[in-house]
């Protein structure tokens, strides 16, 4: 139901209605189908349509912004008037205000929409829950399909739009005290297999029964991709942006060109990676370019928006958030370079360690070393002499991500697109880390 022509008409209506020196219009429309279910039945089953039209104007160096969820011409015109009124209320002209970006020539990625299909989704959900019930398991999960249309036009000739799409299944299974989880995320439905996801989640739940407590402390860990994603998410928010480096709150402040993590670690921001999802242009309408951030352990780059690029004397990398922004540019498509081999290869030669399926509620204790804390969840296992052994009770980690990346001793070739509780989408493989600090345990 998303209509690019209609989105364009909304933007053109706003541009025509504005008498400001510069005007930018951003139209974002989302269509999402989502079935949220237990083993017995869906608990929420929905299709929602969301719309936002944001208008940013400049009048005599003063900037104002207003947004609306309505799509009538009257609402659009009122929004322009409110943005203009807001600009006129600014106490003084904004400093270092760059002219809005002009016309851009680059290739936009437009994916085919994943149309809502409640019947097909229900059939898929039924097959997953039947698999769980067949083993006497409880279960919970979601299956969703989402399309997000984004269009940016401005009075200087900028005119870009693309369609980002996502299909996702996330499935949690419980058997007695055991829990297992598996997920699949792709830009289209064919990239996620309900049979495979159900099988992995059920198998892990059955295998994780009768967990025993192990002593917290420093352990060698093998983190599966979603666990890696929930750590790297904080480097995305708080590490690789030029503004955080300027303010001294990033672990890369004063470290560009220096060795910051282990030799085996290379990280880039690349929305064009075949597995990645997301828009191909940023909040200012500039193309997102691939940026090598860490190359074999050496800090090589940062992501920029136009403002930080101006201050640093370089070009924007296309990582602006919606403007105006107090957070600065964000590296929102991190890719940790995959190694070779499988997770089993990471196990080889490891006498004793912990295999982590997923981290839960990871949060940041301290930004300059990216000290994080969080809990293991949905499948935590002891590794004994190179084999996955018995399940262990969940533990809390309190660990600097920077230190952890210095102690990476293996990276698998199994990169996948993964997300975390607090969001984000990262392309990551499984990773082996020495001396990972678990600080306490819990009761299950």
């Amino acid at each position: 139901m998303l209509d690019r022509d209609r989105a364009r008409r909304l933007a053109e209506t706003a541009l025509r209605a504005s008498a400001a020196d510069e005007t930018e219009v951003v139209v974002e429309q989302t269509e999402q189908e989502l079935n949220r279910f237990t083993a017995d039945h869906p608990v929420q089953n929905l299709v929602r349509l969301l719309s936002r039209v944001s208008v940013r104007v400049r009048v005599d160096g003063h900037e104002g912004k207003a947004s609306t969820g309505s799509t009538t011409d009257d609402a659009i015109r009122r929004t322009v008037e409110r943005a203009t009124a807001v600009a006129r209320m600014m106490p003084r002209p904004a400093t270092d205000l760059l002219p809005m970006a002009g016309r851009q020539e680059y290739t936009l990625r437009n994916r085919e929409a994943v149309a809502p299909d409640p019947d097909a989704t229900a059939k898929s959900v039924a097959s997953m829950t039947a698999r769980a019930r067949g083993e006497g398991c409880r279960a919970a999960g979601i299956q969703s399909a989402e399309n997000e249309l984004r269009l940016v036009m401005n009075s200087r000739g900028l005119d870009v739009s693309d369609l980002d799409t996502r299909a996702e299944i996330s499935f949690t299974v419980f058997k007695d005290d055991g829990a297992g989880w598996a997920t699949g995320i792709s830009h289209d439905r064919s990239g996620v297999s309900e049979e495979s996801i159900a099988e992995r989640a059920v198998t892990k739940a059955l295998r994780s029964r009768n967990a025993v407590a192990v002593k917290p402390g420093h352990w060698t860990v093998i983190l599966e991709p979603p666990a890696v994603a929930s750590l790297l998410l904080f480097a995305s928010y708080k590490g690789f942006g030029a503004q955080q480096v300027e303010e001294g709150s990033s672990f890369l402040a004063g470290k560009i060109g220096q060795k910051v993590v282990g030799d085996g670690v290379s990280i880039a921001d690349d929305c064009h990676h075949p597995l990645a999802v997301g828009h191909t242009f940023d909040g200012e309408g500039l193309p997102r370019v691939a940026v090598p951030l860490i190359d074999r352990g050496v800090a090589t780059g940062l992501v920029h928006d136009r403002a930080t690029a101006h201050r640093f004397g370089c070009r924007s990398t296309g990582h602006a958030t919606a403007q105006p922004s107090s957070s600065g540019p964000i590296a929102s498509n991190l890719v940790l370079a995959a190694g070779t081999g499988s997770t089993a290869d990471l196990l080889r030669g490891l006498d004793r360690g912990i295999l982590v399926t997923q981290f839960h509620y990871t949060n940041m204790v301290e930004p300059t070393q990216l000290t994080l804390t969080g809990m293991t969840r949905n499948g935590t296992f002891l590794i004994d002499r190179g084999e996955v052994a018995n399940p262990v009770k969940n533990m809390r980690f309190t660990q600097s991500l920077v230190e952890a990346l210095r102690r990476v001793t293996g990276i698998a070739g199994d990169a996948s697109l993964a997300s975390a509780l607090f969001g984000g989408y990262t392309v990551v493989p499984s990773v082996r880390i020495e001396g990972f600090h678990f600080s306490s345990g819990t009761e299950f």
Partner: protein
Amino acid sequence: MRDVQTWRELGRRALDICRSEGAQWADIRLGTVELEELVVRNGEVATLEQEEHAGFGVRVLVDGAHGFASGFDVTTAEVDRVARLAVRIARAGRTAGPGRLRWADEPAWKDVWTTPYVTDPFTIPLDRKLGILMEADRILRAKPEISATHNSMSFRRERQLFLSSDGADLAQTILRSGGGISATAHKDGETQTRSYPSAFGGQYMSLGWELIQALDLVGNAERTREEAIELLSAPECPVGDIDVILSGDQLALQIHESVGHASELDRVQGWEANFAGTSFVDTGKLSDRFRYGSDIVNLVADATVPGGLATVGYDDDGVRSQRWHIVKDGVFSGYLTSRDVAHFESESAPKSGAAAVPHSRSCSRAEGPWNVPIVRISNLSLMPGAWSFDDLVADTEDGVYMAGVKCWSIDQQRLNFQFTCEYGWEIKNGRRARTVKNPTYQGITPQFWRSCDAICDERQWRLWGVPNCGKGQPMQVAEMSHGASPTRFRKVAVGVRG
């Protein structure tokens, strides 16, 4: 509410369509949300934005299956389409599993309700609001150690009409205001932040402009700045099992994470298990009168308390707001429920004393009419005790006082938690000693609440707003308040390091 009559006509039309398509239950919420956000950062206006959104959502039950659809074009054609879509979704979902949803019977209220306030914050000129933020910012940046500032105000008004197929007709206007300041100090590789009156945007309440006036952001800027600078040279929090006194704002988050989410009955039933998790508070703990905390711990949910962010006349299931104990004299006593999970609580009735007939506790709320209502934490507060703060410190031989939320994390059953605060000071022999940075404590929920032995009195009790509670898939943000006064917990694991 000039739109209400139009909404009512559209809404009744949608309900008629749902019934004619076979829905046994249908409701529709139509509404608008107005938002005004102001941020002054490092001497510049970083955000000055006004938003106005409109939309509607239709929910149905067809043969025990749930369907919901929403749209943003509030027109006859779109309302018709969305109503039919909701029924189609429910019919499709009916095939996804053998079970059925249940729905508690409740009175079909007809009412109009508005948040009580003194001054509409949307009538206060922007230049007056910016003037306060700019002046607070100037004071915060008056010393070179301050590397970043963040000063904000936020105002939100939601107008909503709820209609249901059993005749409910509820028009509500919900208003809230918020504001706060923070300063980040940086020197020699050390970075510390101090906020007022609380972190992550400050204090939020269901009040008008009078809240901003009462906060006195400018008058508290100098102290906030000095505390941020003081932390740069402060030693780390000590390590060990010692007594902790938590400030009201930190205790509010402790209540939120370790009691609020744990007592959401949809979590207990596994409905949230794939996202934020489940809960250790299974229904057996209601019937078995589980010892949640010490005898002095009384935690009361209250969707009627003045100023609370979750204070409304009726929830998004159309159920009238209520007040009840979650924990009474230390014993677990009730859940947070909605109409579709209420029966799980009543089924514990034979031993727990809960009502035998399912009734919702009025906790069903959605982020705007375009999202589906789910169980949300109500205003949930620790009732005040009898101590003055000075007496409590004087009574503590070896402890740490901790204030200001900095970092939080808790396991998916809400047992193992770890919190880091912005600011702390040691207590030695009943007296305040040196300031400490990164004060961190960790515990297991019931053991922690059972170690509570002293709660300050009503003079220090206030509601603290949580404006950013995430839950559900698709994730929705809800707001609620937690009343608390400084409170002591004995022998807590303090000073966890990475």
